[in-house]
């Protein structure tokens, strides 16, 4: 793993805010994400699917949290709401002081570009662009010139330990390397929030651990807030907090503890959740 703790993270350098428009009102408060009584329902023919029911939670800045739960429990739905990809049927989502319900689709897109870095299970790099251009892609939404875009992309690739693969296209990289390029792409805009949906789902054990370690480093070294959806019991060793979902409900108290215990058992007792405060 790249020795991140020594690296100066030079992404937020002048121009401090490369995005057009007024600077964000980033309040230094204890809550980065505030989910208030959020429900999300989908119409499926005549039926209504309750993907999320009255979920409330808060996430502080600089934390690495996981959403866990069985398939169909609403993890991705919740993550989509947190990252401004989707809007709730009821309730309010406030991220970095911005109530996402107030934004229309284009405003939401601009908000995501400025505040959110996204990582997916299938890395979804653009096959015709090399690693550097893939990482620089989100910077097309900024006012930075080409040289600066490349410089920042190279820095982000150095952070994930891939600065020797700048000119490689995705199909010449291993799965683990592709996921690291995708992580570099998620951090290149220096977002407040990184969201990852099953980032280790398509990786072998070694690469899964490396990816989780890298995400942990991003929190520790640069104070990034990371929200990750995962099935992976290994994740328990790396995250600060786990939110358990079941059938669209957020488990609390003894239910949540029981869920954590079940995951720990499934992982053969190797994982140790709550090792970090």
């Amino acid at each position: 793993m790249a020795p991140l703790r020594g690296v100066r993270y030079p992404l937020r350098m002048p121009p401090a805010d490369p995005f057009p428009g007024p600077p964000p009102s980033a309040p230094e408060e204890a809550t980065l994400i505030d989910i208030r009584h959020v429900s999300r329902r989908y119409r499926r023919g005549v039926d209504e699917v309750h993907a999320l029911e009255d979920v409330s939670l808060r996430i502080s800045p600089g934390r690495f949290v996981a959403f866990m739960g069985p398939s169909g429990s609403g993890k991705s739905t919740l993550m989509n709401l947190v990252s401004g990809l989707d809007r709730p049927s009821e309730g309010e989502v406030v991220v970095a002081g911005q109530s996402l319900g107030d934004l229309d689709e284009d405003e939401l897109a601009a908000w995501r570009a400025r505040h959110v870095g996204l990582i997916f299970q299938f890395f979804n790099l653009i096959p015709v662009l090399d690693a550097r251009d893939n990482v620089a892609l989100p910077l097309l939404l900024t006012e930075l010139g080409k040289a600066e875009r490349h410089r920042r992309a190279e820095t982000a690739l150095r952070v994930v330990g891939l600065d020797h693969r700048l000119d490689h296209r995705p199909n010449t990289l291993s799965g683990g390397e592709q996921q690291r390029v995708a992580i570099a792409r998620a951090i290149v805009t220096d977002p407040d929030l990184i969201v990852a949906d099953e980032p280790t789902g398509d990786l072998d054990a070694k690469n899964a651990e490396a990816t989780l370690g890298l995400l942990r480093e991003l929190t520790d070294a640069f104070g990034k807030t990371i929200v990750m959806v995962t099935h992976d019991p290994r994740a328990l060793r790396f995250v600060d907090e786990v939110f358990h979902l079941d059938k669209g409900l957020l488990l609390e108290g003894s239910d949540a503890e029981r869920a954590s215990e079940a995951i720990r058992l499934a992982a053969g007792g190797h994982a140790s959740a709550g090792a970090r405060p």
Partner: protein
Amino acid sequence: MKYAGLVLANLGRNKLRSLFTAGAIALAVLLVCLLMTMPAGLDRLISDLGSNTRISVHNKAGLVYSMPQSFTRKVRQLDGVLAAVSMTWFGGAYEEEGKVTFPNFAVEAEHVGSVYPDYVFTPGAVEDFVRHRDGAIVGRKIMRQYGWKVGDRITLRSTVWPANLDLRIVGEIADDNAPMLWINRTYLDETLKAAGRGGLGIAGIIWVRVDRPERVGTLMSEIDEMSRNSESPTASETEKSFISNFFGSLKGFVTIILIVTALVSLCIVFIAANTASMAVRERSGEIAVMKAMGFGRRAIFGTLLAEATLLSSFAGALGVAGAIALTRALKTVATLGPTLGPLGNFTVTNDVVTAGLALSLVVGLLSGLVPALGAARKPVVDALREVF
């Protein structure tokens, strides 16, 4: 502009497909350009055939109706008329009974030379035609066809008049575009009188040569005005429009060309649209991720549309260049022999170039529109769900 790299990279993603599509568009644009040169080319062909100071006068009711021969003399006296000659269908058949194998007319021998100063005759032909009552002047094409020489004697049996005329060929029209035979009007007139038919009182067509091109218009209306209240009102036309009438319905032909052009254009829209929608579909994952990153509807729409438009404009430019090269080559070929001459009339003008490029631009825009709009409008969560 900063999206240029992305657009180009995407075009190069499936090189073979881009190449095939570009090839189809280029060929279609080439075809459209060639088709567009045709109406202008035909027009020029007719201009070459017709002189711009000759007028044809015929019965308003149609070419098969005649006018009184006295009208020719009246026309001849008009101010600005250099010469006029009447031509009357003789309908003579050679060898084969009752079958007219080439047009033949009775003309006024003493006037025909001055109406057609631009025709090239064998030396002394016109003078001999005037001198010999039974003389005939024959187009080169017919001479060749029947193996005739000046001085030969032939007999034409009229299918219209009760007259079989023994003729002596006194000259040749050295022009492949004049495939006709002229006999002396006086000869036919006297033959008819001898048969107790009262002579040839009519004129089929009157050809009039005007002194200056800009007088053509006024003289045509003057002539038609003169005959308006007579038994056979006339219609005058320039030789150019007379020939195009004679050549059949050129307008109908041009319409067909335009319809074919439109169909070919439509066809390439479909080809290009197919490519554009395949490109969008195979990339739906990346498009979803780009939207998730914060690329707005306009950026997605713009890059996809730019991709389709760039491809078809590039192909269109190739097609136009191909059309120019091809017509140039035809022009070179046209100089090789007189029968190939008409090939040189087709030129890719600036208008055709503009139209060809505009067409390819429109094809690109139209073909990219639907897939790009679909991709841009799809909500980001739905797009992501389809992929993951």
